[in-house]
């Protein structure tokens, strides 16, 4: 049975779409058939981050409203086997997402896929509620920063009260914390919340810590999920998070400042 994962945060700009793209690609690289759905109706961006923006013909909303079949809207990734993207509409608004419609599309996807990642919009309005409603797992994306941590706590409350699982008395949605844009140098200087601080406040299991990295912008510029950049710390950290999600015990890395020796500095390894 397929697993529905919501990538959510409450706050905007913390890296939900970057993480959905990287995490979904990471799952597909493990040989698991994965579909990433963009729930940000009216502000679609997953297609751009995945580099398939020119291949969008039909979208998620068309499928919900019966204007296209699912197979016409799904875009197969050209780099990674087993990876598909379901883009959203750029012209409609969030009211186009109906509970019954979303459920029907997810049920159809579940027959074919191992993992379905719902890339949530920011906020706690309809789009975000629909993205998390049918989730089995939730990955909470948070920056080590006060407003992001507060909003993460808020969205955890929403998950525990308003998801399908909560409303039907089923086992609760499994929660995982993904800390992004972590800067060990600033943590060491006492300028940024430490991983342990965020964990103590939110008290949910830690899935991964993605270090602040120039590779993320480089990857989005060219429409490549950052996990495919195997020379980057951020890409490796996403790959680790995927392995942990699948049950491997992988030690967290990149939590300490990189003390580069002269030799490494001369080699100019990318961060």
């Amino acid at each position, binding site marked *: 049975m397929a697993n529905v994962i919501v990538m959510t945060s409450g706050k905007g700009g913390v890296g939900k779409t970057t993480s959905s793209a990287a995490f979904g690609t990471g799952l597909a690289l493990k040989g698991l058939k994965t579909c990433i759905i963009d729930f940000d109706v009216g502000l679609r961006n997953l297609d751009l981050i995945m580099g398939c923006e020119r291949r969008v013909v039909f979208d998620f909303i068309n499928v919900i409203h019966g204007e296209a079949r699912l197979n016409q809207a799904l875009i197969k990734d050209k780099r990674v086997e087993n990876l598909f993207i379901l883009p959203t509409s750029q012209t409609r608004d969030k009211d186009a997402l109906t509970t019954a419609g979303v459920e029907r599309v997810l049920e159809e996807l579940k027959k074919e896929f191992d993992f379905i990642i719902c890339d949530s919009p920011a906020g706690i309005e309809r789009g975000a509620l629909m993205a998390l409603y049918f989730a089995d797992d939730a990955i909470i994306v948070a920056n080590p*920063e*006060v407003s992001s*941590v*507060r909003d993460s*706590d*808020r969205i955890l*409350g929403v998950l525990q*009260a308003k998801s399908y699982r909560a409303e039907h008395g089923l086992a609760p949605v499994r929660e995982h914390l993904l800390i992004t844009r972590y800067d060990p140098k600033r*943590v060491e200087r*006492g*300028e*940024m*919340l*430490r991983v342990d*601080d965020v964990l*103590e*406040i939110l008290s949910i299991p830690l899935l991964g810590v993605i270090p602040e990295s120039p590779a993320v912008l480089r990857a989005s510029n060219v429409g490549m999920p950052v996990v495919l950049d195997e020379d980057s710390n951020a890409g490796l950290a996403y790959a680790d998070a995927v392995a942990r999600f699948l049950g491997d015990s992988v030690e967290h890395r990149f939590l300490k400042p990189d003390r580069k020796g002269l030799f490494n500095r001369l080699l100019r390894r990318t961060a």
Partner: protein
Amino acid sequence: MNILEFFRTSKRPTFAATAKERLQILLAHERADRNGPDFLPQLQRELLEVVKRYLAIDDDKVAVRLQRESGCSLLEVNVELPLSAATPAHRPARAGA
């Protein structure tokens, strides 16, 4: 900066420690509100209306909280009166008026 100031500033909590403390206090409040039953805001509004019929108080001076402890629940109603409110603001309205 003289040497004394240097030592004094070094004892201040770090920015991160301040952030953590602020979040812990804030979230403790927000979580308590979140777990409250849905009728509390309505109860608070209605209590305020009734109190205002008799006393001149500000809208934020009635606080209602529900605390759950093992075995019992405690409904705590706090009405904060200004010193001048000890005398009635106006004659009590007749019931139903």
